[in-house]
């Protein structure tokens, strides 16, 4: 059944969120975001199959492109942060503190 695929995507997405909110390691956070994108992709593709149109797949393709871009930028930022602070702890960056 197609909805099983969707349920899988929900589960992966939630695990991705869990990663974002529970980890302080910036690498893990970045990868969790990738995971969430993947979950979204899965939903797109599943819907494409469900409706038998290919637009969902196109969107998935674009998400892949965006994810690649995001990964590149994210990694660049991580390098920068590491160079500036020497740490990978996201708690070090607290400029938003009120």
């Amino acid at each position, binding site marked *: *059944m*197609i*909805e*099983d*695929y969707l*349920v*899988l995507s*929900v*589960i*992966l*997405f*939630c*695990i*991705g*969120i*869990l*990663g974002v*909110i*529970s*980890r*302080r*390691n910036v*690498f*893990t956070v970045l*990868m969790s975001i*990738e*995971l969430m994108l*993947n979950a979204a*992709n899965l939903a797109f593709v*599943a819907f*494409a*199959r*469900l409706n*038998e149109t*290919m*637009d969902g*797949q*196109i969107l*998935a*393709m*674009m998400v*892949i*492109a*965006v*994810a*690649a*871009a*995001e*990964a*590149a*930028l994210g*990694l*660049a*930022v*991580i*390098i*920068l942060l*590491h160079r500036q602070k020497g*740490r*990978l702890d996201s708690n070090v960056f607290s400029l938003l503190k009120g």
Partner: protein
Amino acid sequence: MYIDTLFSIFALIAIAGSLGLVLFRHPMQSALCLAVTMISLAGIYALLSAKLIFLLQLIVYAGAVMAMIVFIIMFLNLREKDLPEERERFTYLIGGAVLLIPVAWFMIKVMKSIPGVKNSIVGNGFGSIKELGQVLFTNWLVPFEIISLLLLVTLVGAVVLAGIRRESND
């Protein structure tokens, strides 16, 4: 029938991989877990008759992106003492899980309410490169162009961010 079996196997591997991603302390281990998840997702795409996406998932995601991440992790040469101490990690995990249960439950409920069909392989070129390409370059041309622009911007941005600064700029 074999599709469902395969899906179950892939799904389990994907979930296990993603849990590994979240739970492992060292990013290298997490990255490898993520790669596992991605590869199993590629399998699932194949089950959904998305041939091109299957390929892209393997090449771009599991290949290029993961390689880049792994490369950077190794490049930074992370040791145990560089890693943040995350003693409260499990508190957050449990708390987050509790928070996410209603979210997941709601979303699953929504998904379940969609009238489903039995999954089977769809023929006559569904998801193949040519058909996909035709749709992409007729209906989705402008978004495609924008995406390419985005990639260009990203390229420049990444260079600017990670590039070597002169002393005077600091």
